[in-house]
């Protein structure tokens, strides 16, 4: 395999690995459940895309033909990641999971739980 391709593959692997690591790091570091939800659902999706692209290039160059499993994995990830993130946020909201004290728009959560329109006399609007 020629060195240029190896470098490209390595770049994608590093890029992907960095974002997967970042997603996990965010999970550890962010202060409450709702903010923690942000890191692993998105950064990890992008990181995995990087890893999958690297895998596609590698197997293509190695002469195994175009492997399209990776595209399917990406597609399924893109479909399932937002749904699971939404379900977790929704569940947390309805279970009144403790949130950071300085979270803005707290009055909205009560309306959201009842699935009503937001209260009109909001303090920040």
């Amino acid at each position, binding site marked *: 395999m020629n060195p240029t391709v190896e470098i490209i593959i390595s770049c994608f692997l590093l890029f992907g690995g960095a974002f997967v690591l970042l997603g996990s790091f965010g999970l550890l*570091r962010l202060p409450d459940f709702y*903010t923690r939800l942000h890191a692993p659902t998105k950064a990890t999706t992008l990181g995995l895309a990087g890893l999958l692209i690297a895998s596609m290039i590698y197997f293509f160059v190695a002469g195994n033909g175009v492997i399209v499993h990776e595209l399917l994995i990406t597609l399924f990830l893109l479909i399932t990641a937002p749904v699971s993130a939404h379900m977790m946020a929704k569940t947390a909201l309805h279970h009144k999971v403790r949130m950071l004290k300085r979270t803005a*728009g707290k009055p*909205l959560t009560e309306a959201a739980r009842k699935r009503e329109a937001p209260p009109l006399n909001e303090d920040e609007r």
Partner: protein
Amino acid sequence: MKLSSPTGWLPMPAQSLILFVVWLLLNNTLAPGHILLGAVLALTIPLLIAPTQAPQPRVVRHWAAVRYVGRVLWDILVANFEVAMRVLGPTRRLQPAFVAIPLDVEGALPITILASTISLTPGTVSAEVSEDRKWLYIHALHLEDEAALIAQIKSRYEAPIKEIFGC
């Protein structure tokens, strides 16, 4: 807004095609046996599940849909770097917030797509939709200007979705 109601021997042509292609991709083959099996599955599964489908608005502007997918993928890439900075930076400066977004799009499918887009683009997660489907509640990781966030979501994502479904 056009509604599709599944009828006939090919109730969901797009889904049939997707099923067929995904079957071949999963098996990574073009062997005649798999083409036949894939075709049978692609024809029978939609027939079985079509009665359970609620009528959904149809995509009327296909190119707009393709452009929308490209834009969202690009936004995912760009916005991820932004969130990366937030995660690595001091967490004390984070200002998380709940925001209610007034919805103009109608129908379960367009709202689902909008909510999924919001969840996929880093920095925001959709949490709940009001019973009358007029408000979408989202959680933002870091909010500086609520009006700007709402305006951005409405112009960047909701407007194209309205165009795609022609509603």
